[in-house]
């Protein structure tokens, strides 16, 4: 009973915070609500026994992402005006409901199993099985950092464009390559469609 109550409270809290995150007029409040959702989910993960994942979720979701969002908001500016949606609201509600209902239908046909209780930290042992995931994560992080550096490099593109405009000697594509024999350059691909004679010669 106590178990279920805690889970229910956490789930309801997460849903409310998610809804507020979505609909609040100021983006900064959305960010705070997102951090609350993250905290609720992390707590749920902890209760389920996935301690390491809970820690990662809390630190990354509620920490790193919040910091990033605040930085982005500071650069972009917190325009409080979020004009009405482009898509008619009933369509959006309908689609979201359909998704939820279909997923629910698919998930509830699964037999309801009991959870396997507290789980010892298998996560380390299983990194041997999922080593490929570790490599992929490293590549991902590297790519993300490169992407950030490239995207946030302001002014570099402007400088590069000025350099090209000054002309740096790229060859233009010539349609007629020079012939090797020193004769007057002729089009080696021949005349196109020039031979449409009216009478037919054999």
């Amino acid at each position, binding site marked *: 009973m106590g178990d279920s109550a805690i889970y229910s409270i956490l789930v309801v809290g997460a849903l409310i915070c998610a809804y507020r995150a979505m609909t609040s007029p100021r983006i900064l409040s959305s960010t705070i609500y997102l951090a609350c959702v993250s905290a609720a989910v992390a707590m749920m993960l902890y209760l389920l026994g996935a301690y390491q994942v809970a820690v990662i979720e809390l630190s990354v979701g509620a920490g790193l992402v919040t910091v990033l969002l605040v930085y982005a908001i500071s650069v972009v500016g917190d325009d409080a005006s979020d004009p009405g949606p482009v898509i008619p609201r009933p369509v959006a509600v309908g689609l979201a409901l359909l998704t939820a209902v279909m997923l629910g239908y698919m998930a509830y046909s699964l037999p309801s199993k009991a959870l396997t209780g507290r789980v010892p930290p298998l996560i380390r042992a299983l990194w041997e099985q999922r080593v490929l995931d570790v490599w992929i994560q490293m590549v991902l992080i590297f790519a993300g950092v490169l992407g950030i550096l490239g995207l946030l490099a302001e002014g570099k593109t402007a400088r590069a464009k000025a350099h090209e405009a000054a002309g740096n000697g790229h060859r233009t594509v010539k*349609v007629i390559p020079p012939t090797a024999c020193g004769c007057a350059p002729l089009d080696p*691909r021949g005349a196109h469609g*020039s031979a449409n004679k009216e009478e037919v010669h*054999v």
Partner: protein
Amino acid sequence: MAQSLILLSIGLPWLGAVATWLTRNEQERTQHVLAVGFSVAAGLASLALIPYAGSSVALRLPLGGLFGDMTFVADGLGVFLAAVATVVGSLAVIFSVSYMHGDPQLGRYYSLVLLFIGAMVGLVLTNSMLFLFFFWEITALCSYALISYYNDDPKAVSAGIEALVMTQIGGVGLLGGALVVYALFGSYEIDAFLQNAATLGPTPLAWMAFGFLIAAAAKSAQFPFQTWLPDAMEAPSPISALIHAATMVNAGVYLLARFYPAFAPVPGWKTAVVAVGVISALLTACMALFAPDLKRALAYSTVSQLGYMVYAIGVGGIAACSFHLFSHSIFKALLFLAAGAVIHAVGTRDMWKMGGLAKQMPIACTVFVLGALSLAGIPPVFNGFWSKELVLEAGLTGGPTWALVAMLVGAGLTACYTFRMVWMVFFGEARSHLHGHDATPAMRVSLGLLAIGTLTSWLAAGPFFHLLESTMPHHKLHALSLGGLTHEILAAPFTWIAVGVVGLGLLAWAGRDRLTFLTDGFGWLGVAASKSFGFERINEQVVAATQATANALRVTQPGHLSWNLVGIIGGLVAVLILLTWGA
């Protein structure tokens, strides 16, 4: 040993493609050297593979699970086609050193050519139908990219797209057949399929047989898909020689030959194949007779000769078809390269502006005449004569008589248009003042080697047939030695009838001034032929319809993120609904 040679034959050209791609276009000489080096090495590797030919799986690369293993079998048909692809490929690359000299985007050109050569070798050596499709598609892609190589020219670009669309229609048939086999047999292996084809049941087998026929007809530019090949002559001449004469268009014929034992029992299939071959051969021979553009005439002649090969398959002469394939690759590549030398020198493709070039270009003239004599099928030393006679002999015993008569007429027409080409370009009065230099040294290497091949490749008939017979057990071929071949052909009275028809064709050209009554009477045929019997119109209409549909569909692209998200989530809902229904 066969394993590493197969890997080398496919891997070396692909390595070369990457290497030439990475070389900067300023270092032109390096690009030439790299391309020639890698293609010659690949040629040597596949020539070295010939003694190791066998009928069992030579190389197996496990890919696990869904796609089956990537298997390669080095049997006679595959090995000789691989040798043709790489050797003619390397000669075309050597020719390109001169022809494409000074081109600003040489890296793109060479990497595509080398990619193509590797894919072609993979196509003929593979034993898995899925990977046959995979290599098939790579060759189609390279062909499109090389036809539209001069991408500033809208004609070249539209010709490339036309080729791509037409061959893709066929590719769908091929994929469908492969999936049918996988669904019913559980594996993609070709030799297993050939062994157990009868267990597939008559209806799926018939679908597969005709699907593969369509795929092969589209790839080899047979009727009714014959329009893309003449339009593909916008490509540089070495490309026309390599892709559109010697290798890629052979893929369709190869497909039919490889799967012949499985499809032969299907009722109506062999007749359909014969009909496709005969119609293609005659239709395009007529069109070649009236074509004003040198490369176009050669393209029509390619389709016509491929029609002969398809006809040979239809009457059951797989060995004859393979032999003609071998000879044709050599002499057609020779003709295209020689034509390329002429076009490069005088700057036009229009035969009405040429004439009397024999004095200015003796080497090009000599090799072109050699190739032309082989194409026309003149005895006694030209490989075209022996292989064409073998095809006609096969038709004598295995096929319907109407088809044989039609092919005889086609042989006469072949001689006629071939002689016309030779005469209009090299002899007679110069129709305009053109200055031409003879073939450059790089061109001479390729031309010379191919000319020697034209004169001597028929001497390898004995080992060739023996190779085919011993490594292709499902096809039940009957090997001929060289002596047997010469005896059989020279002793058969039919051969002399055929030679007589060829002679008639030559005389008809020579005496054309006196035969004006014929040209007047058949004037309508000439007009129809120069409009390619209405097929170009059909093409244009199909392209216009496609573009109209595409323009009409532009309204579905609002470019707005929210609407795109509606599409994404809507798609997700659709998938979920499908999954629940299907479960």
